[in-house]
């Protein structure tokens, strides 16, 4: 089955009001080209589930987000995501704020088809007080109360990977695949952008197959977009674009998000990449040192 499609075709399959999970972590390996395609569309009222970075900030700034399920939103080296802050401080954003591990459990529950997973995480904190929809339950096996972390069922997941074939075998060659396998399994439809489209034979080498973290049946569509994670990183191919993030963050205090999109977004990914210096420039961005 050939699952190749375009970014525009992915966004055409999304609907207003959908719950969309976005893979990656903060400024790392976010499906930013797909996010940009949403920015160019009239899609709205989304519920986002994300270990958030500029994906969340940009979609909030563009008025695409009704509700956010999150544990943090951060650009790491710029700790506070400026447009996420604006959205929260405006009072307009509905949120379900949870712990990083609870988000993982919610994705697992959705992937496994169970309504919740019991955990201690969240007990005694405002996670419980501020989220009346997250229930405490009795255990049949002890006398303690437990948090019943509900399944985070996703209508769609958006993920960026290093390599994929046209059948949806996806490889993450960087050091961490984060929770992307759980996003893929928690979602009804999973759309993956890839930096490199490879023939199926590429995975015949076990060392390459070892870096595939979910089966192709969990991949709905594959979009070949070299550099598609920019300005976030796609290790080991490229790091995150520090000057670009700084310019993005600066527009939050001067010019606003329209200044950012006027300068960079363009009408297509090709146009965007021209505006940020081209694919060779993206691929030359050094990996970060932690």
């Amino acid at each position, binding site marked *: 089955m050939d699952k190749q499609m375009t970014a525009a075709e992915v966004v055409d399959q999304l609907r207003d009001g959908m719950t969309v999970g976005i893979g990656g*972590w903060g400024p790392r390996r976010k499906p930013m080209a797909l996010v940009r395609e949403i920015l160019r569309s009239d899609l709205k009222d989304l519920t986002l589930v994300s270990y958030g970075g500029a994906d969340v900030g940009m979609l909030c700034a563009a008025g695409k987000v009704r509700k956010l399920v*999150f*544990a*943090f*939103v*951060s650009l790491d080296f710029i*700790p*506070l995501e400026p447009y*996420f*802050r604006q959205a*929260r*401080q*405006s*009072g307009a954003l509905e949120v379900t*704020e*949870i*712990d*990083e*591990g*609870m988000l*993982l459990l919610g994705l697992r529950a959705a992937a496994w088809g169970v309504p919740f997973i019991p*955990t*201690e*995480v*969240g*007990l*005694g*904190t*405002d*996670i419980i*007080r*501020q989220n009346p929809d997250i229930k*405490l339950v009795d255990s049949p096996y*002890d*006398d*303690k*109360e437990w948090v019943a972390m509900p399944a985070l069922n996703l209508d769609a997941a958006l993920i960026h990977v290093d390599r994929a074939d046209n059948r949806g075998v996806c490889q993450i060659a960087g*050091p*961490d*695949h*984060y*929770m992307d396998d*759980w996003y893929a399994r928690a979602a009804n439809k999973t759309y993956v952008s890839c930096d490199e489209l490879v023939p199926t034979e590429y995975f015949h080498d076990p060392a390459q197959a070892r870096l595939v973290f979910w089966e192709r049946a969990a991949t709905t569509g594959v979009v070949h977009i070299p550099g598609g994670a920019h300005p976030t990183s796609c290790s080991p191919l490229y790091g995150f674009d520090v000057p670009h993030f700084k310019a993005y963050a600066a527009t939050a205090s001067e010019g606003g998000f329209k200044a950012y999109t006027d300068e960079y977004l363009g009408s297509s990914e090709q146009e965007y990449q021209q505006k940020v210096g081209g694919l060779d420039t993206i691929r030359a961005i050094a990996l970060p*040192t*932690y």
Partner: protein
Amino acid sequence: MTNTATDYTLAELCIVAASEAFRDEGEVLATGIGVIPRLAASLAMKTFNTDLMMTDSEAYLLSEPNPLGARGDDFVQASETWMGFSRIFDNVWSGRRHAMLGPTQIDRFGQSNTSALGGTYQQPKVMMLGARGFPGNSISHPNSFFVPGHNKRVFVEGECDFVSSIGYNPDRLPRGHSLDDIDIRLVVTDLCVMDFAGADHRMRLVSLHPGISLEQVCENTGFALEIGEEVPVTAAPTAEQLAIIAGLDPHNQRAHQIKGNPAGDRSGNGH
């Protein structure tokens, strides 16, 4: 004490004081978020607790802590296993971890806030990071705090504006749990070292940094601390410790962590 140094910075004093949090922890994952906590955990691992585990802050567990910052093309880190973020939670929930973190607010119960300040929850005045991993850390394993600027905005009078991590607050104690299930260890600041070993887990003053008075600490803390009859002075670093810290932090990032990078002994400069 052997070889106590006389020329050291406050950052170095804090690193050495904070490293004590990891002394008797045995074989646990030591996580220090931020330059001073990371150097504290690294110093402990290089000296008195070589059984500690540590990550490269990315995706591998190390047998030897990485020095901070750019490390040169020929540097090979001492990886011993893959430790991506999803696996971190398997470790967290096992309890075999001790994290040292720097929240924005800490209250008298040891509850902390990383999320939002002021306003209402629906519309906070200042939105910060979010709860991050604080809820899970605090219910699962020991935690310590580092605060580079000890004042009443951090050590608040009332409860934290948002409670990211569970503390010794009887009103929030989950059913079936006791306050003894909660394990908050050291709180190291630019003024002093504290813990929660007071009566009923009250926050207690452990030591004052050289040149800091009891009054300075009390004036800058929004609640009453338990204070013993004699409060010792925080131990100065040894020359060996300073040399190890310098090796772990070759670009001197520690000089930028506390405002003005003051000397460790402030008895002479009228602070």
